[in-house]
């Protein structure tokens, strides 16, 4: 019996039954897009608008004085801008190179222990970057562990190199997850064809695999660049003592050191946003040049490259690196949390559990724990859902709202948490929308700040999926929503899970925005740690950090395990 081929439009004809019926036939996608997409756009544009207003106002009057002031002074603009760009570019390139290499080793080779690699790559990201920076100082500083054990100081404690090193280690996970996910869902028939055509393994890698991975690689590089531009915890600890600052340390100083220069801080923040948009535009331009479609419904069998002679040395190098970068910061953190007194060495005689007792005796602990988990999971869920909607809207449907979601999510990702915090206080701590003192202001803050992580990853992944699969579904009579649910979403499972995981981790450890927006009762574990640190109470603060990192780690392992992230298994 011949099947009636339905047109590739939503079922039924428009007009039959009216708008309500038409919407009903759309299924869940349209209302979800409206609520999540619209919600996100409001939550990101309104505070930004208030920020723009703040940059143009002085007291009550409108003025361009803040802009002129910024342009006029080197120390406000050109010097920190240069530093930011250099550090972030270096971090982006290095972390992407590392992440891509590690992802390839994990998914496409027979390296020993590759199934455990994801955890080790993710750990340095779960530790907040200011902790990583602290650990670096504790390890390599003049009063550091390395010096007290070996008498040497192999690496400088402060400066550009330590800053780039710490940030690279912190951000390798972005490109790792993006590339591993893409490699895992790659259709190898193109590579097989190349091999059949006579190219050797290395040539296939260079001329077929690598170009196909370009969207994911670029995606990871972009995320690392934006994250680094928005970072100020590590620059303040590592760069400032060496005498140089970045745009973010400048924004931090302008908005927290009296006399507060809010207007100028807002101008610099807007500049960061513009830079983010520019970088994004370059990324899109680069991607527009080719087609990276790979998963097109044909059967795939993951091809493993045998490393043979290189297996042992590569394994040694990779695992030394992974263990060092994952365990050293954790060990330093735990050590500080057990330290009895500063200046009495790091031996067992100076270790104590007293700080943990202090933390456990605190009456705000259980509340902070619960807040951390609930807010992070909530924000991650919202972000993953919005990531899907934004990616679909931008890449598949090619709509304007999709492109705007993509842009705004990235701009907010490139915005320092401190600025998002200020913008949210400006927008939501008074009329007309007053969320002061509630959990919502934190939840929305994390959502807006980190959704970009999910959007980027899912977009890159979606670019690789041929629309043939969805069209096949439509041809068979499924409505768009059913197609999305049963074909598209499962194919995107890895990038969605990666997005969920990244947002979860980042929301749990977020401090700068939280420190401005939290109120009594809505504190998180990271915030409690930060409070202790700013009191000068590093040891108890580290105890809180250890607890927070443990929870984030366990959560990440559960999420990664359940979605079989980057394990090299097929995603369809």
């Amino acid at each position, binding site marked *: 019996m011949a099947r009636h081929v339905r047109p590739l439009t939503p079922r039924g004809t428009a007009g039959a039954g009216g708008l309500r019926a038409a919407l009903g036939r759309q299924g869940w996608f349209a209302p979800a897009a409206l609520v999540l997409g619209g919600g996100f756009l409001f939550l990101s544009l309104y505070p930004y608008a208030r920020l723009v207003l*703040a940059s143009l106002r002085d007291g009550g009057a409108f003025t361009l004085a803040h802009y002129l002031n910024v342009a006029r002074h080197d*120390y406000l603009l050109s010097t*920190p801008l240069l530093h930011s760009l250099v550090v972030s570019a270096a971090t982006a390139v290095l972390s992407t190179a590392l992440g891509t290499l590690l992802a390839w080793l994990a998914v496409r080779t027979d390296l020993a222990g590759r199934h455990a690699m994801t955890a080790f790559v993710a750990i340095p990201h779960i530790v907040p970057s200011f902790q990583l920076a602290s650990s670096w100082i504790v390890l390599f*500083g*003049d*009063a550091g562990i390395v010096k007290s054990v070996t008498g040497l100081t192999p690496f400088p404690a402060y400066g550009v190199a330590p800053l780039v090193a710490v940030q690279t280690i912190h951000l390798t996970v972005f490109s790792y997850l993006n590339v591993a996910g893409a490699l895992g869902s790659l259709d190898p028939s193109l590579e097989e064809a190349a091999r059949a055509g006579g190219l050797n393994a290395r040539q296939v890698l260079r001329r077929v695999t690598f170009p196909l991975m370009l969207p994911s690689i670029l995606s990871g590089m972009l995320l690392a660049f934006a994250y680094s531009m928005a970072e100020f915890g590590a620059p*303040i*600890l590592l760069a*400032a*003592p060496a*005498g*140089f*600052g970045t745009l973010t*340390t400048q924004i*931090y*100083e302008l*908005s*927290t*050191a*009296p*006399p*507060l220069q*809010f207007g100028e801080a807002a101008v610099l923040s807007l500049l960061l946003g513009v830079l983010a948009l520019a970088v994004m535009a370059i990324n899109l331009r680069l991607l527009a040049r080719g087609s990276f479609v790979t998963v097109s419904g044909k059967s795939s069998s993951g091809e493993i490259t045998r490393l043979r002679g290189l297996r042992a040395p590569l394994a040694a190098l990779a695992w030394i690196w992974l263990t060092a970068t994952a365990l050293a910061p954790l060990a330093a953190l735990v050590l500080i949390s057990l*330290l*009895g*007194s*500063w*200046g*009495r060495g790091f031996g067992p005689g100076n270790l104590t559990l*007293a700080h943990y007792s202090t933390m456990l005796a605190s009456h705000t602990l259980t509340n902070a724990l619960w807040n951390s988990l609930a807010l992070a999971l909530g924000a991650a869920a919202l972000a993953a859902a919005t990531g899907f909607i934004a990616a679909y809207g931008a890449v598949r449907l090619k709509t304007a709202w999709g492109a705007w979601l993509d842009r705004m999510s990235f701009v907010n990702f490139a915005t320092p948490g401190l600025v998002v915090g*200020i913008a949210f*206080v*400006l*927008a*939501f*701590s*008074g*009329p007309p929308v*007053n969320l*002061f*003192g509630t959990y919502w202001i934190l939840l929305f803050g994390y959502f807006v700040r980190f959704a970009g992580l999910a959007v980027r990853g899912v977009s890159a992944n979606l670019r690789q999926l041929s629309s043939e699969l969805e069209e096949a579904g439509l041809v068979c009579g499924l409505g768009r929503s059913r197609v999305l649910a049963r074909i598209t979403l499962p194919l995107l499972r890895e990038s969605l899970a990666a997005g969920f995981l990244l947002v979860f981790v980042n929301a749990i450890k977020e401090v700068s925005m939280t*420190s*401005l927006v939290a*109120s*009594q009762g809505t504190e998180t574990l990271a915030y409690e740690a930060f*409070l*202790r*640190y*700013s*009191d*000068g*109470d*590093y*040891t*108890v603060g580290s105890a809180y950090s250890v607890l927070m990192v443990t929870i984030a780690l366990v959560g990440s392992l559960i999420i990664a395990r359940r979605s079989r992230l980057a394990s090299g298994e097929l995603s369809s």
Partner: protein
Amino acid sequence: MKFFKNAPRVFGCAAFAFALLLGATAGRADEGLNALYQKAKAEGKVVMYTSVPTFIVDQWRSQFEARYPGVKLEYFRSGTGKVLARINAEKSAGQLHGDMVWVADATAYVHFAKEGMLASYKTPEWDHIPFGKDPGGYFVTGRFLPGVIFANTKETQDFPASWSDLADARYKNKVVMASAVVSGSTTVMVSSLVHDAGLGWQFFQKLKDNGVLILQDVPDVARAVASGERPLGITLTLYKYQAEYKNSPIKIVFPKEGPILMSSPIALFAKAGHPNAARLLYRFLLSKEAQEVLSQSGIYPARDDVAGPEGLPPLGQIKQKAIIPDSDWMVAHWTDVKSQWRGMFGR
């Protein structure tokens, strides 16, 4: 004749009336407190924005809520800079949520008063505070933070005798301090050393030439000295009294000019949502019970009838030989100080 017959009666009445009046005024302080408490109970809570260390504020909260059941103490605690940023942002948003403010930066209060954000409130407790009181009643010192030199006794036994000694060649690469751009208390200390102690900017130029390490804020300086990273540092006394430094090899050095005695004022917001509860808390924080908590944590209380931190000279003694920052000069030169610093140290 009639007069002398009635004199005792008249005199007695006058005396009685006088005694009543005296009793009334003397008791007014406590009566006022009680009446204030009743009004505060009706408001239910007070919100304090502060940079005072959390463990101290928590102690105050227990004491305050025990003494005044029915009035809750809520607080927003962060570094001085972030508290000021939040106040600023809330003001721009149109609704200030705090009832009172207590941060380390004295010049911020001058700024707040100028903007009309503070309420004038002079209380009997003011009589016990020797100095650091705003004539208009808008703010008063709640605690004194002495800026001193920390020395790591394991790394050095050569302690500087005066502030100017720090710039000596023998201390090359041995000194650490915080940034005057980021750390509010350091801005005050730098201003005081430049202007009030008369050392001028040459002092800091020499420090720079001798490789002084600049960290972000004063707690970092305490850690750097305690851990032995640098043997000498400019920071605040209170850090020595924290648990993780109690057994550290730190010595607090009072140079011969004396410490830099900074005052950290306390003030009420004019548009407070809970004005009476705020006044109650204000008076509590200036009471002996609350001020003693400060002493135990290595901070000098504002009140002269409360003993200072154990192991440190009493306030009366320090006051005679201390560098007292000139608030008016600081307010006028705040941005200049920062630009000078920036020009010298690069950021």
